[in-house]
């Protein structure tokens, strides 16, 4: 399945795009998405261990399964305020 991932802040700057498309096996988990993202975009390496993944408007942990229609986002630790 194809998953579109929105990128924000330094993750977007390092990749040079605000969205990337990843090809993942059906029922892939967030952990597999992380692995594929790191493999396709090695420029993210400085952030890799710290990246947060959101599915819809909620944070997702590594065991969460993904579906093709999910809104997925990836970003570094937040610093609003």
């Amino acid at each position, binding site marked *: 399945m194809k998953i579109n991932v929105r990128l924000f802040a*330094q993750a977007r700057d390092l990749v040079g795009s605000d969205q990337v498309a990843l090809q993942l096996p059906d029922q892939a988990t967030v952990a597999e998405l992380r692995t594929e993202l790191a493999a396709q975009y090695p420029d993210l390496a400085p*952030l890799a261990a710290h990246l947060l993944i959101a599915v819809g408007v909620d944070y997702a942990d590594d065991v969460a399964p993904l579906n093709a229609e999910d809104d997925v*986002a990836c*970003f570094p630790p937040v610093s609003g305020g």
Partner: protein
Amino acid sequence: MIELTRETIDYTALTESVRSHQAGAVVLFLGTVREMTDGRQTAVLDYDAYPEMAEAKMAELEAEARRLWPVIEVGIVHRTGRHDLGEISVAVAVSSPHRPQAFEAGRHLIDRLKEIVPIWKKETYSDGTTEWVHPGIDQPSTESTNE
């Protein structure tokens, strides 16, 4: 009122929006752009957000405050885009029957906002270098070449 905006925050209107005859206390918190951080001079701050999720998380924080304290009204507004020194990036207003609840809820709301709401700030220092602020990640500044 929960809002993400690119416009200047009208904190007077926000404060008025939480006032109530049931309230004996109204607390307003403003986050403003500080000039000096760890000996470095800020020129401007740029805030980026994931808008849909940021507004959803701010609404969650309001619900959380309502579970924990007898708050009457809550208002949270965060601004995105470029901010000059002294400008207001975030405003939190809370009303409650008595002042301890308003202070505690206001403190909780801004502390939690900084933990979970997907908004990020990027420093541009007076020497022209830029740096995303990502807590827990130590990184060198990068030269500003194209911004």
